[in-house]
């Protein structure tokens, strides 16, 4: 699952740094914006069947690759 998610994240962020540094801050370092965030949530739902509502979470809860992995694990 982790590998698949990191592939997804690389595609959405268009940068391979997200695979190397799993604690990189995604919003502050301009890797994710509103568009990328929505795309990521849709991809997570399509690939893992895990639905995360865009208004449900604070961005600070999902701002690094590690936090996203943890959230999907907790919900699947």
């Amino acid at each position, binding site marked *: 699952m982790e590998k698949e998610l990191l592939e997804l994240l690389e595609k959405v962020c268009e940068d391979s740094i997200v695979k190397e540094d799993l604690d990189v801050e995604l919003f502050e370092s301009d890797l994710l*914006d*509103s*568009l990328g*965030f*929505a*795309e990521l*949530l*849709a*991809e997570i*739902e*399509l690939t893992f069947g895990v*639905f995360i*509502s*865009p*208004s*449900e979470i604070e961005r600070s809860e999902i701002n690094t690759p590690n936090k996203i992995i943890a959230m999907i694990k907790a919900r699947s």
Partner: protein
Amino acid sequence: MNFFEGYAFFLVLIVLLIPAIIMGYFEKSLKLYSFGISIVFVIIIFSKNWIQLLYLILYFILQLSIAAGYLYLRKKYGRNQKLYHIFLILTILPLVLCKLETLIHINIFGFVGISYLTFKNVQIIIEIYDGVIKELAVFEYASFILFFPTLSSGPIDRSRRFHDDWVRVCKREEYLKQCADGIQKILVGIIYKVILAACFFRLMEFLMADKSWYCIIGYAYMYGFYLFFDFAGYSLMAVGTSYILGIRTPDNFKFPFISKDITDFWNRWHISLSHWFRDFVFSRFIMTCMKKKWFNTRLQKASFGFIVNMFIMGMWHGLTPSYLLYGIYHGVLLALTEIYQKKSKFHMKYKNSKGYKFVSWFITIQLVMFGFFIFSGRLLEIIK
């Protein structure tokens, strides 16, 4: 009497806030008291026009029934899209009827605050559909919807964020600090609205009399500053009052005139509105596009998303040509910004240099001011 206007309002406000501060100081829950004040203000302010008060009561009962009914059916039938769409339309219907007034000249559901209350109700329906809201307590719902500081013009709070503050009783020290912050916000808000906005309004009126091009340009800028100080002042007073009642309503403005591009501007101007649209319109539009594979490229999808998003925002302001044009204008600007920043090598190379940032800021401010000029209705007036 109107919200945050005139001596009478502030006099009543001070008298009613003093017991709240005393209760906060003794670490008592403010739930019941702040609901009581909300009802007092609703009665005082709406009773000068009984039809408005009647509409508000009717609207409240209607929306509560819609939300409670949908929650019941959502639990029974799960994430059913058809049901969701029906209830979403029902929730928005009163606002649509109200906004149609400009076209059909019949006033239905025309009462102060309906535009802002609709945001609160729509988000509840969407979050019930998402499974994020699982229960609806009537007293809390009423406290959230009728919370008087934000009733007429926002900032737009979220029900779950509101809930966290609503159930929490602050420790004395924390409450006093929050209360002091609140009073400071109210005072700055008064300076913004009563002094600065009033000054710019005067200049605006002065420049409006002349139809020469330089006066029209001057008018556009004065209107922009007037709009900011008037609305930011109002928002500060609303947020400050909320703080004193233990609710940390989110801020609405963050130095919009230093924005480095249009995207940045919408993170600084009327933030609670633009973030509401981001979370409940834009994100969901993009997610639907992805699932249904409507567009081939990211940029097409993003551009379309921005334009749809801002057009709906324009419609929400009112169904007049100026507001609709204002929405499309900002939608197109956001789309162009996205395309430019993703495609331009020049942008990628120089985006961190000082000169580039300065030029980018300068252009942004001119575009923003032109947007306000459309918003003011004067552009279309002059073209006619």
